[in-house]
């Protein structure tokens, strides 16, 4: 692409770098929590065992559980109480959110991009995808939350490990508007979907999540059985960008694709609008309570 020099690190090389970088510090807890999320028979003692392996995590969980965002009438003093008062599913979400947020700390904003913006975007997509599952499909949507939260993990990998090149790329996007994935492809030879997919596979994430991360810009590429799930992530991603929860300056794909996926999922626009309102409100609350900052 114009103005961007090609990097000579291959996708495999980048994924190898991930394993020796600080990014891999979240691997154990995140991998563990994801298998708990996708395993309906997982018990609370599995969760407690997992938390005990990561000592600083307990304090962080309790801080969030006691924040005014959850506003329980009782002071939560340990994980058992947290399980009872805010629930198993919410607790798993809090843990995943806490661990993921560790990757988004620091960095300086360049062009329209910053790690904080990317984090806001990820949280927004997670909440939107989950709420679509809950309100429209009548399902818990824990996996949708996880996929939403992690779908752009490839972006943070590029930011952390190919920092100079990535910062150059977001600068270029300001001047020459184009989709991020196009810019990545000409700059790196791969995009953040592929990076995320590789990481998700190396870290043994559940299959649905691998597809959710890998194909969120191209749901038709996902395995048949995960396609509707991935389309939900695509829709959530698109809509959050549209709602001002983007993280980089870029033109959105053709709206006709969005319309098509909305039809594929059997969603009505007035229903989606109602859900977006709920998510905006929720995000506002999160930002106001300071829970957003890692």
């Amino acid at each position: 692409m114009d103005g961007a020099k090609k990097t000579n690190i291959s996708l495999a090389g980048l994924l190898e770098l991930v394993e020796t970088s600080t990014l891999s510090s979240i691997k154990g807890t995140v991998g563990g929590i994801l298998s708990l999320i996708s395993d309906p028979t997982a018990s609370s003692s599995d969760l407690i065992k997992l938390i005990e392996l990561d000592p600083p995590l307990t304090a962080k969980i309790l801080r969030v559980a006691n924040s005014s965002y959850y506003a329980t009438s009782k002071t939560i003093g340990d994980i058992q109480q947290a399980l009872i008062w805010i629930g198993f599913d919410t607790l798993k979400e809090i843990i995943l959110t806490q661990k993921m947020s560790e990757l988004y700390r620091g960095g300086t904003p360049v062009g329209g991009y910053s790690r904080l913006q990317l984090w806001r975007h990820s949280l927004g997509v997670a909440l939107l995808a989950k709420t679509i599952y809950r309100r429209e499909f009548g399902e818990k949507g824990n996996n949708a939350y996880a996929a939403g939260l992690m779908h752009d993990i490839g972006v943070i990998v590029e930011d952390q490990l190919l920092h100079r090149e990535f910062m150059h790329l977001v600068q270029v996007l300001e001047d020459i508007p184009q989709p991020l994935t196009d810019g990545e492809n000409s700059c790196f030879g791969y995009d953040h979907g592929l990076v995320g997919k590789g990481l998700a596979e190396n870290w043994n994430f559940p299959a649905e999540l691998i597809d959710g991360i890998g194909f969120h810009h191209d749901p038709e590429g996902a395995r048949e059985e995960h396609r509707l799930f991935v389309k939900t992530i695509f829709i959530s991603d698109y809509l959050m960008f549209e709602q001002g929860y983007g993280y980089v300056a870029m033109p959105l794909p053709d709206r006709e694709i969005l319309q098509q996926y909305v039809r594929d999922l059997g969603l009505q626009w007035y229903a989606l609008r109602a859900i977006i309102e709920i998510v905006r409100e929720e995000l506002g609350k999160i930002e106001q309570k300071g829970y957003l900052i890692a």
Partner: protein
Amino acid sequence: MSSSDADLRQRIQELETEVRHLGNELRLTREEYEDATSKYLDIYCNLEKKISERTRELDAANGKLVLEIEERKRTEAEKEQLIAQLQKAMQEVKVLSGFLPICASCKKIRDDSGYWSQIEEYISKHSNALFSHGICPDCVKKLYPDFHAELRRRTKK
């Protein structure tokens, strides 16, 4: 269809959606509540189990402690007995140690109450030593000169 009809229809659609959404939300929340309740029971049962396990452990530890205390009491008693024996032995040793006032001429020994007794009487009383009486060659010469001369003559042969 007038525009107010369309508005009304849209409003109805929106309300229906809201009702459906809230219905789903309510059902999921209820499920989560039930799940939390069962998790609570899980934790509670685990706690009960832990307590009974702990109680069993404590019982076992307590039994061991009782045995240890008994064992300790027994060795203590043995030790006391040994000490008593030692003390007694020490006392006996003490009686025959230190200064014994003895008559320079007749060799009688004076005891604590000022009574003079024969040396063999005194030692027999204060120790386990027994006396077997004999006579030494010097005293034979002094007390029985004839017998002494005869003895010398015989041994020379």
